[in-house]
């Protein structure tokens, strides 16, 4: 059982958890890109209005807070990132 041979299949629970962790990593990047969106609007002929940008930024902010709360609910920090290394019990192939 060399460390290179991490299991290909994980139990559904672990698989789901890893994807949630992926989502947790992606969320700030998505947020950063979207927060830059108002800069693009400046290019339009009449310019961008502060109110429009404000509504967008705050709306996005609320969405990020909610998403972060949802993701955080599904991520327990005390579980390690690589459950496969924890023991053979975790390496059970996915039977589903």
């Amino acid at each position: 059982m060399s460390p290179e041979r991490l299991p290909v299949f994980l139990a559904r629970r672990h698989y789901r958890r890893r994807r949630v962790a992926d989502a947790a990593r992606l969320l700030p990047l998505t947020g950063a890109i979207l927060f830059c969106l108002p800069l693009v609007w400046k290019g339009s002929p009449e310019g961008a209005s502060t109110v429009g940008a404000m509504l967008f930024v705050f709306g996005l902010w609320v969405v990020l807070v909610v998403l972060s709360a949802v993701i955080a609910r599904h991520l327990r920090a005390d579980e390690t990132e690589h459950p496969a290394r924890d023991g053979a019990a975790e390496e059970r192939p996915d039977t589903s």
Partner: protein
Amino acid sequence: MTVLNLLIVVCLSYVVLLFAVAFGADRAARLGRGSWLRSPIVYTLSLSIYCTAWTFYGAVGFAARSGLEFVTIYLGPTLVMIGWWWTLRRLVRVGRSQRITSIADLISSRYGKSNLLAVLVTVLAVVATTPYIALQLQSVTLSFAAFAETDPTATTLPDMQSTALWVAVGLALFTILFGTRNLDANERHHGVVMAIAMEAVVKLCALLAVGVFVVWGLAGGVAGTLERIEASGISRFEVSGARWVGLTMLSAMALLCLPRMFQVMVVENEHEDHLRTAAWAFPGYLLLMSLFVLPIAALGLDLLPTGANPDLFVLTLPLMEGRDGLAILSFLGGFSSATSMVIVAAIALSTMVSNHVVMPLWLHYSGTVAMVSGDMRNVALMARRLSIAGVLFLGYVYFRISGGGTALAAIGLIAFVGVAQFLPALMGGLFWRGATRTGALAGISIGAAVWLYCLFLPSFGPEMIVPQSVFDHGLFGLSWLRPRALFGAEGMDPVIHALMWSMLLNLAAFILGSLLSFPLPLERLQGAQFVNAVEHSGTQAGWSGGMAQSEDLLIMAQRIMGAHEAQALFAAAARRQGVAGYLPEPGPDFIQELERALAGSVGAATAHAMIAQIVGGTAVSVSDLMAVADETAQIMEYSSRLEVQSQELARTARQLRQTNEMLTHISVQKDEFLSQISHELRTPMTSIRAFSEILRDTGDLGPEEQKKYAAIIHDESVRLTRLLDDLLDLSVLENGQVDLNIQSGSLTGLLDRAVRAAGGETGDFVIRRDRKAEQIELTTDLDRLAQVFINLISNAHKYCEAQPAVLTIRPEVNGTQLVVDFIDNGSGIPASKQAMIFEKFSRIGVSKAGGAGLGLAICREIMARLGGDISYLPGQKGAAFRVRLPLEIDGPASQQGRSKEIRSKETDSP
């Protein structure tokens, strides 16, 4: 009572309340009743010290000057918090596992517990934070002055500087009282945390209250507010892309690097899981804090006279409308923001200053530290208290010198760029094993230098520190060294300009320095621990503890941690080691534990140095280095070692099980053998005894009868003797003590001899032989082999029921092996009995002849001695035995070893 007097009363009551809350929380924690003190909500609220007076007052001012741009200062932290899985989790885990006391401690720990690096970080942190503290003092005095101005009865305006002084003294008192209760920085300051959590609630409520008042009280609802914003001077979204992105990045970096944020986020962190709540609650808090900033700014610009300080709109709007209660609440919000920031910043900075500057100096100048008696704890605590006073004094001095003229937001951003210089070393240390001390030193130094030259010193204004000629023509007249246009980057925003160049050069120096230098062993060990903190914890540098004196260590630990705690730690370690008393064996594990405990009090670098003074230095063993050199190889090696060990265990267990089975079997056999032999001996003995009794007691026996009885006795005696002979023979054979008499001869002669001895052919017993095939020369113990043949032939004679019984003897040479089959035409031996026939005393059915059942057992032993075997050959018409043996037996010497080998083979497969 005038508003000003009311304000003073409310303010003082608020301060009293803060002291009471802090005192109550400390008391509850001490009594163990403070589980609510450790809730994730309190943790999240304590993070809100990010929102200082700069946020409370400055954000509105910022928005009034540049519109929506103010929000970048809160977007950065939002992104970092929702990305907690990347960085904060790792940061908090490292901070907790290494008992980190400050950001300087973390960076110095990571890079080989280097105190030089810690000093550099401390100095930069002090330089960057002092203006920030001045800013808080300024905001309190400004807001106080704003109240005084509106008060018609106030005859003289209060002296701004004396207000600042009183605030500074009060904060110093509070911080010293609640921030230096215990030396171990890793023990939570529950009082302080609770007080700032309460202040967080107050400032949020105050800002929301002002916002609600502005939106629904002044602008007439949401739609009206939006119209007012559209109509104001900030209606256009004209943010430069560089500033939008740059300031977002800057605030994100600052959240990670600000010493006060590090203090509440990492050092005061109670449980890693609290991050999960903070991940959404803190962005939510920031959202609420910035929600009403634009409306307040727009209304302020609209309603207040031009020239009014936009930084004070939060306060002046309610005042102008005559809402004194709301204004006082707003003042309390600003006051809370300012005080909580100053308190935590002072704690964070004082920890750094005392651990990395004062204590090492004190250790250096007081000579042989560890041995001197006296409580060093008091020295350390005093150093921390003096540092708090010093930091606040510096802030006050800065405030006096700068005169409170600069716009609030500008100072905040300047400080942000300063602390952001820690980021490459910090993140590089957490994620890159290759980061070295040299790289970190180079990166932070160059970044700090660029920051000082391009942003901090010019911020005092031309001719204050940096002469105008340098602004215009650059340092030494080199135009590419102009502080606002470094390398010809003209026309940029000064903050973004300084941020860009300082971070680029910092990063470049950090990476280059790391690539070109070679880390010390301790650095590499620490690096491995930090980088792998989330996956698994690695090995620590082991102390060569043999030389250490437990008593010296105890004396030192008592002086730093206090007698009680140190004795408890030592006693616990001694108990774990199974040693009575207070002095455990100074093994590497214990010394490491002690170092961690000390690090919680005086920082990693100082703790390391102090232990090194007594113990004499770290032993980085070759295996440690190998571990660092290749973690993967280490894991692989470890797992393969485990695998080998488990295989070995399984093998041993299997062998043990086999041996156990064999022993049980042998024991059973022995019992059977004993009972069999008793039985076999008893039968002839009984008849001998009976007939001899008849001979003795019966007087009138005829000579015929006497002779008959004597013959029976004789026969039985012969049988007994034969049995004993056989037993002896078997025992000799089994013990391998037999001496072989090796001769050469032909198989034909041997068989002739055997047939003769077995009684030869009779009428109803025919032996078929192939005399041509029997022309084989043998070199072996012919007598013993003949014994086997005789046994087989007489067995056939005795047991074959066929009429006539025909025994076929079929020799064959197979390489160097001779194979002789003895096959009769009887009914054979049933399969269930075949395995047993070679065992002692095994007889099939009722014995016809008086054999003891030892014959085949003896045959088997003999054949084993001769280097061959005898086996039952199933699948023939009748009973068939196959004898195999080498044509030429090995020499007697090897024969001895061989026989042992055979014996062991036999016992292997019972």
